[in-house]
Protein backbone atom coordinates (compact mmCIF):
# COMPACT_ATOMS: atom_id res chain seq x y z
CA UNK A 1 0.00 0.00 0.00
CA UNK A 2 2.73 2.31 0.99
CA UNK A 3 4.69 1.49 -2.18
CA UNK A 4 1.57 2.19 -4.20
CA UNK A 5 1.16 5.61 -2.57
CA UNK A 6 4.78 6.47 -3.21
CA UNK A 7 4.44 5.48 -6.88
CA UNK A 8 1.24 7.50 -7.11
CA UNK A 9 2.91 10.54 -5.62
CA UNK A 10 5.86 10.36 -7.95
CA UNK A 11 3.78 9.83 -11.05
CA UNK A 12 1.60 12.83 -10.18
CA UNK A 13 4.66 14.92 -9.41
CA UNK A 14 6.31 13.88 -12.64
CA UNK A 15 3.21 14.78 -14.67
CA UNK A 16 2.94 18.18 -13.03
CA UNK A 17 6.63 18.87 -13.52
CA UNK A 18 6.75 17.83 -17.18
CA UNK A 19 3.58 19.74 -18.03
CA UNK A 20 5.04 22.78 -16.32
CA UNK A 21 8.26 22.65 -18.24
CA UNK A 22 6.36 21.93 -21.46
CA UNK A 23 4.39 25.11 -21.00
CA UNK A 24 7.56 26.91 -20.18
CA UNK A 25 9.17 25.52 -23.30
CA UNK A 26 6.20 26.58 -25.41
CA UNK A 27 6.43 30.09 -24.03
CA UNK A 28 10.15 30.30 -24.66
CA UNK A 29 9.74 29.01 -28.19
CA UNK A 30 7.02 31.56 -28.96
CA UNK A 31 9.04 34.37 -27.36
CA UNK A 32 12.21 33.56 -29.31
CA UNK A 33 10.40 33.22 -32.64
CA UNK A 34 8.45 36.34 -31.77
CA UNK A 35 11.63 38.33 -31.32
CA UNK A 36 12.66 37.38 -34.87
CA UNK A 37 9.26 38.35 -36.26
CA UNK A 38 9.57 41.63 -34.36
CA UNK A 39 13.01 42.37 -35.82
CA UNK A 40 11.76 41.72 -39.34
CA UNK A 41 8.38 43.39 -39.28
CA UNK A 42 8.12 45.85 -36.40
CA UNK A 43 11.49 47.06 -35.17
CA UNK A 44 12.27 49.65 -37.86
CA UNK A 45 9.29 51.71 -36.83
CA UNK A 46 8.74 50.81 -33.18
CA UNK A 47 12.43 50.69 -32.25
CA UNK A 48 14.82 48.26 -30.58
CA UNK A 49 13.25 48.88 -27.19
CA UNK A 50 9.69 49.45 -28.37
CA UNK A 51 10.16 53.15 -27.81
CA UNK A 52 8.28 54.31 -30.93
CA UNK A 53 9.17 57.62 -32.57
CA UNK A 54 8.04 60.94 -31.10
CA UNK A 55 4.39 61.59 -31.98
CA UNK A 56 4.66 59.67 -35.24
CA UNK A 57 4.84 56.07 -34.03
CA UNK A 58 3.43 54.90 -30.68
CA UNK A 59 5.63 53.06 -28.16
CA UNK A 60 4.88 49.45 -27.23
CA UNK A 61 5.47 49.96 -23.54
CA UNK A 62 1.93 50.69 -22.36
CA UNK A 63 0.67 47.60 -20.49
CA UNK A 64 -2.62 49.30 -19.72
CA UNK A 65 -3.33 49.76 -23.43
CA UNK A 66 -2.76 46.04 -23.96
CA UNK A 67 -5.06 45.10 -21.11
CA UNK A 68 -7.85 47.35 -22.37
CA UNK A 69 -7.51 46.31 -26.01
CA UNK A 70 -6.39 42.72 -25.54
CA UNK A 71 -8.90 41.21 -27.99
CA UNK A 72 -8.11 43.78 -30.73
CA UNK A 73 -4.33 43.36 -30.80
CA UNK A 74 -4.28 40.44 -33.26
CA UNK A 75 -6.53 42.35 -35.69
CA UNK A 76 -4.37 45.45 -35.31
CA UNK A 77 -1.24 43.54 -36.28
CA UNK A 78 -2.95 41.71 -39.14
CA UNK A 79 -4.83 44.59 -40.74
CA UNK A 80 -2.82 47.59 -39.62
CA UNK A 81 -4.49 50.73 -38.41
CA UNK A 82 -5.54 54.14 -39.60
CA UNK A 83 -7.15 56.93 -37.71
CA UNK A 84 -6.86 58.02 -34.13
CA UNK A 85 -5.16 55.83 -31.54
CA UNK A 86 -4.54 56.83 -27.93
CA UNK A 87 -1.52 55.20 -26.30
CA UNK A 88 -0.30 56.35 -22.92
CA UNK A 89 -2.34 59.59 -23.00
CA UNK A 90 -0.91 60.58 -26.37
CA UNK A 91 -2.76 60.70 -29.68
CA UNK A 92 -1.35 59.05 -32.78
CA UNK A 93 -3.00 59.52 -36.16
CA UNK A 94 -0.62 57.99 -38.67
CA UNK A 95 -1.19 54.77 -40.54
CA UNK A 96 0.28 51.41 -39.70
CA UNK A 97 0.44 49.11 -42.75
CA UNK A 98 -1.10 45.59 -42.63
CA UNK A 99 1.56 43.08 -41.60
CA UNK A 100 0.55 40.08 -43.69
CA UNK A 101 1.55 37.82 -40.79
CA UNK A 102 0.04 34.35 -40.27
CA UNK A 103 -1.86 33.65 -37.02
CA UNK A 104 1.06 31.63 -35.62
CA UNK A 105 3.43 34.55 -36.25
CA UNK A 106 0.96 36.97 -34.69
CA UNK A 107 0.80 34.81 -31.56
CA UNK A 108 4.60 34.68 -31.45
CA UNK A 109 5.14 38.40 -31.92
CA UNK A 110 2.39 39.21 -29.41
CA UNK A 111 4.04 36.87 -26.91
CA UNK A 112 7.30 38.73 -27.50
CA UNK A 113 5.86 42.24 -27.28
CA UNK A 114 3.66 41.52 -24.28
CA UNK A 115 6.66 40.17 -22.36
CA UNK A 116 9.23 42.76 -23.41
CA UNK A 117 9.73 46.51 -22.92
CA UNK A 118 8.54 46.29 -19.30
CA UNK A 119 5.44 44.22 -20.08
CA UNK A 120 4.74 40.86 -18.41
CA UNK A 121 1.73 39.01 -19.67
CA UNK A 122 2.73 35.42 -20.49
CA UNK A 123 2.06 33.47 -23.65
CA UNK A 124 -0.48 34.53 -26.27
CA UNK A 125 -1.64 31.27 -27.84
CA UNK A 126 -2.54 30.63 -31.49
CA UNK A 127 -6.05 29.61 -30.37
CA UNK A 128 -6.50 32.99 -28.71
CA UNK A 129 -5.25 34.75 -31.82
CA UNK A 130 -7.52 32.74 -34.12
CA UNK A 131 -10.50 33.55 -31.91
CA UNK A 132 -9.64 37.25 -31.86
CA UNK A 133 -9.12 37.32 -35.63
CA UNK A 134 -12.68 36.10 -36.17
CA UNK A 135 -13.90 39.27 -34.54
CA UNK A 136 -11.93 41.67 -36.75
CA UNK A 137 -13.88 44.50 -38.33
Amino acid sequence: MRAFLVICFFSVAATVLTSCSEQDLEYKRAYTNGSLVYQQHCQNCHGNDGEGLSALIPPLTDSIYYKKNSAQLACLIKNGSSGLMIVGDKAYTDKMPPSGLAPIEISQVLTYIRNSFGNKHGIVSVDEVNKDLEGCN
Partner: protein
Amino acid sequence: MKNLIYTCFAVLILAACSSNESAKNALPIYGNREPVTKTVNGKTVTDTIYQTIPKFSFIDQYGDSITNKSLDGNIYVADFFFTSCPNICPVMHRNMLKVYNTFNKVGDFKIVSYTIDPKHDSVNVLKQYAEKLGVKDKNWLFLQGKKDETYKLAKGYMVQARENVHDGFFILVDKQKRIRGSYLGTDPAQVDKMIEDIKTLQAEPQQHIAQ
Protein backbone atom coordinates in the same frame (compact mmCIF):
# COMPACT_ATOMS: atom_id res chain seq x y z
CA MET B 1 54.58 57.09 -71.14
CA LYS B 2 52.31 54.59 -69.43
CA ASN B 3 54.92 53.98 -66.78
CA LEU B 4 55.16 57.69 -66.13
CA ILE B 5 51.41 57.89 -65.53
CA TYR B 6 51.57 54.97 -63.12
CA THR B 7 54.44 56.59 -61.25
CA CYS B 8 52.52 59.85 -61.07
CA PHE B 9 49.53 57.98 -59.60
CA ALA B 10 51.71 56.19 -57.07
CA VAL B 11 53.26 59.47 -55.96
CA LEU B 12 49.86 61.11 -55.72
CA ILE B 13 48.47 58.28 -53.62
CA LEU B 14 51.47 58.33 -51.33
CA ALA B 15 51.25 62.09 -51.04
CA ALA B 16 47.56 61.81 -50.19
CA CYS B 17 48.35 59.24 -47.51
CA SER B 18 51.10 61.22 -45.88
CA SER B 19 49.14 64.45 -45.89
CA ASN B 20 46.30 62.62 -44.16
CA GLU B 21 48.72 61.40 -41.58
CA SER B 22 49.94 64.89 -40.79
CA ALA B 23 46.45 66.12 -40.01
CA LYS B 24 45.00 63.10 -38.28
CA ASN B 25 41.82 64.72 -37.08
CA ALA B 26 40.94 66.59 -40.24
CA LEU B 27 38.01 65.18 -42.16
CA PRO B 28 38.58 64.15 -45.76
CA ILE B 29 37.14 66.17 -48.63
CA TYR B 30 35.14 63.92 -50.95
CA GLY B 31 34.38 64.15 -54.64
CA ASN B 32 36.22 65.28 -57.73
CA ARG B 33 38.82 68.00 -57.60
CA GLU B 34 40.79 69.86 -60.19
CA PRO B 35 43.76 72.17 -60.03
CA VAL B 36 43.43 75.70 -61.41
CA THR B 37 46.25 78.06 -62.18
CA LYS B 38 45.56 81.74 -61.94
CA THR B 39 47.43 84.98 -61.55
CA VAL B 40 47.09 86.81 -58.24
CA ASN B 41 49.05 90.06 -57.75
CA GLY B 42 51.33 89.21 -60.63
CA LYS B 43 52.18 85.78 -59.22
CA THR B 44 51.04 82.52 -60.69
CA VAL B 45 49.35 80.33 -58.07
CA THR B 46 47.79 76.92 -58.31
CA ASP B 47 44.63 76.26 -56.38
CA THR B 48 42.32 73.29 -56.02
CA ILE B 49 38.66 73.42 -56.91
CA TYR B 50 36.71 70.88 -54.89
CA GLN B 51 33.39 69.34 -55.78
CA THR B 52 30.56 71.25 -54.13
CA ILE B 53 26.81 70.74 -53.73
CA PRO B 54 25.04 71.97 -56.89
CA LYS B 55 22.52 74.81 -56.88
CA PHE B 56 18.93 74.00 -55.96
CA SER B 57 15.69 75.78 -55.17
CA PHE B 58 13.12 73.87 -53.12
CA ILE B 59 10.22 74.61 -50.71
CA ASP B 60 10.44 73.87 -46.97
CA GLN B 61 7.79 72.63 -44.52
CA TYR B 62 6.66 76.23 -43.86
CA GLY B 63 6.11 76.91 -47.56
CA ASP B 64 9.21 79.11 -47.81
CA SER B 65 11.67 78.92 -50.66
CA ILE B 66 15.03 77.41 -49.72
CA THR B 67 18.02 77.51 -52.05
CA ASN B 68 21.64 76.48 -51.72
CA LYS B 69 22.25 80.13 -50.75
CA SER B 70 19.90 79.82 -47.74
CA LEU B 71 22.37 77.36 -46.24
CA ASP B 72 25.39 79.67 -46.62
CA GLY B 73 27.44 79.88 -43.44
CA ASN B 74 26.09 76.59 -42.08
CA ILE B 75 27.52 73.16 -41.64
CA TYR B 76 24.70 70.83 -42.57
CA VAL B 77 23.66 67.20 -42.86
CA ALA B 78 21.45 66.07 -45.74
CA ASP B 79 19.42 62.96 -46.35
CA PHE B 80 16.75 61.71 -48.76
CA PHE B 81 13.51 60.17 -47.47
CA PHE B 82 9.72 60.15 -47.83
CA THR B 83 7.15 60.39 -45.04
CA SER B 84 5.24 57.23 -45.97
CA CYS B 85 8.41 55.14 -46.16
CA PRO B 86 7.78 52.01 -44.11
CA ASN B 87 11.27 50.57 -43.75
CA ILE B 88 14.45 52.56 -43.14
CA CYS B 89 13.14 56.13 -42.76
CA PRO B 90 11.85 55.80 -39.19
CA VAL B 91 15.23 54.38 -38.18
CA MET B 92 17.10 57.16 -40.00
CA HIS B 93 15.03 59.91 -38.46
CA ARG B 94 15.09 58.36 -34.99
CA ASN B 95 18.88 58.62 -35.27
CA MET B 96 18.75 62.06 -36.92
CA LEU B 97 16.62 63.33 -34.05
CA LYS B 98 19.61 62.69 -31.80
CA VAL B 99 21.78 64.81 -34.09
CA TYR B 100 19.12 67.55 -34.10
CA ASN B 101 18.88 67.57 -30.31
CA THR B 102 22.67 67.63 -29.96
CA PHE B 103 23.22 70.69 -32.16
CA ASN B 104 19.90 72.53 -32.07
CA LYS B 105 21.12 75.20 -29.68
CA VAL B 106 24.56 75.57 -31.26
CA GLY B 107 23.79 77.68 -34.35
CA ASP B 108 25.41 77.55 -37.80
CA PHE B 109 24.18 73.99 -38.09
CA LYS B 110 21.22 72.64 -40.05
CA ILE B 111 19.66 69.38 -41.14
CA VAL B 112 18.09 69.11 -44.58
CA SER B 113 15.81 66.21 -45.52
CA TYR B 114 14.72 66.03 -49.15
CA THR B 115 11.56 64.08 -49.91
CA ILE B 116 11.72 61.85 -52.97
CA ASP B 117 7.91 61.69 -53.08
CA PRO B 118 6.79 65.33 -53.52
CA LYS B 119 3.38 64.26 -54.84
CA HIS B 120 2.38 62.79 -51.47
CA ASP B 121 4.69 64.87 -49.30
CA SER B 122 3.08 68.28 -49.78
CA VAL B 123 4.20 71.25 -47.68
CA ASN B 124 1.40 70.48 -45.24
CA VAL B 125 2.30 66.79 -44.96
CA LEU B 126 5.94 67.72 -44.34
CA LYS B 127 4.91 70.25 -41.68
CA GLN B 128 2.77 67.67 -39.88
CA TYR B 129 5.58 65.14 -40.08
CA ALA B 130 8.15 67.60 -38.72
CA GLU B 131 5.92 68.66 -35.85
CA LYS B 132 5.08 65.10 -34.89
CA LEU B 133 8.76 64.26 -34.97
CA GLY B 134 9.35 67.12 -32.54
CA VAL B 135 10.87 69.68 -34.95
CA LYS B 136 9.36 73.13 -34.56
CA ASP B 137 12.02 75.41 -36.05
CA LYS B 138 14.05 75.94 -39.19
CA ASN B 139 17.12 74.08 -38.00
CA TRP B 140 15.75 70.92 -39.59
CA LEU B 141 14.32 71.62 -43.01
CA PHE B 142 12.06 69.20 -44.85
CA LEU B 143 12.27 70.12 -48.51
CA GLN B 144 10.23 69.22 -51.52
CA GLY B 145 10.90 70.05 -55.17
CA LYS B 146 10.37 68.46 -58.56
CA LYS B 147 11.12 64.74 -58.65
CA ASP B 148 13.67 64.96 -61.45
CA GLU B 149 15.52 67.79 -59.74
CA THR B 150 15.56 65.86 -56.47
CA TYR B 151 16.97 62.75 -58.13
CA LYS B 152 19.57 64.88 -59.94
CA LEU B 153 20.52 66.68 -56.74
CA ALA B 154 21.01 63.34 -54.97
CA LYS B 155 23.85 62.63 -57.41
CA GLY B 156 25.43 65.91 -56.29
CA TYR B 157 25.39 64.53 -52.74
CA MET B 158 26.84 61.28 -54.10
CA VAL B 159 23.82 59.23 -53.01
CA GLN B 160 21.09 57.27 -54.77
CA ALA B 161 17.51 58.46 -55.14
CA ARG B 162 14.88 57.40 -57.65
CA GLU B 163 11.22 56.38 -57.76
CA ASN B 164 10.36 55.08 -54.25
CA VAL B 165 14.01 54.19 -53.65
CA HIS B 166 16.68 56.04 -51.73
CA ASP B 167 19.64 54.93 -49.71
CA GLY B 168 20.06 55.62 -46.03
CA PHE B 169 23.11 57.85 -46.01
CA PHE B 170 23.57 61.05 -44.03
CA ILE B 171 25.84 63.44 -45.94
CA LEU B 172 27.93 65.92 -43.97
CA VAL B 173 28.52 69.20 -45.84
CA ASP B 174 30.87 71.95 -44.68
CA LYS B 175 30.45 75.73 -44.94
CA GLN B 176 32.14 75.70 -48.34
CA LYS B 177 29.49 73.18 -49.49
CA ARG B 178 32.04 70.39 -49.81
CA ILE B 179 31.16 66.82 -48.81
CA ARG B 180 33.13 65.90 -45.70
CA GLY B 181 31.51 62.66 -44.60
CA SER B 182 28.97 59.98 -45.45
CA TYR B 183 27.36 57.84 -42.75
CA LEU B 184 24.82 55.04 -42.73
CA GLY B 185 21.84 56.73 -41.10
CA THR B 186 20.39 53.45 -39.92
CA ASP B 187 23.44 52.60 -37.81
CA PRO B 188 23.54 54.36 -34.41
CA ALA B 189 27.32 53.83 -34.16
CA GLN B 190 27.95 55.62 -37.46
CA VAL B 191 25.60 58.42 -36.46
CA ASP B 192 27.54 58.86 -33.21
CA LYS B 193 30.71 59.07 -35.31
CA MET B 194 29.03 61.77 -37.40
CA ILE B 195 28.18 63.76 -34.27
CA GLU B 196 31.87 63.68 -33.35
CA ASP B 197 32.87 64.65 -36.90
CA ILE B 198 30.49 67.62 -36.85
CA LYS B 199 32.28 68.85 -33.72
CA THR B 200 35.62 68.40 -35.50
CA LEU B 201 34.30 70.37 -38.44
CA GLN B 202 33.00 73.15 -36.21
CA ALA B 203 36.47 73.49 -34.72
CA GLU B 204 38.12 73.63 -38.14
CA PRO B 205 39.58 77.05 -39.01
CA GLN B 206 37.54 78.92 -41.58
CA GLN B 207 38.88 78.49 -45.07
CA HIS B 208 38.11 80.80 -47.91
CA ILE B 209 36.35 79.33 -50.82
CA ALA B 210 38.81 78.65 -53.56
CA GLN B 211 36.55 79.52 -56.44
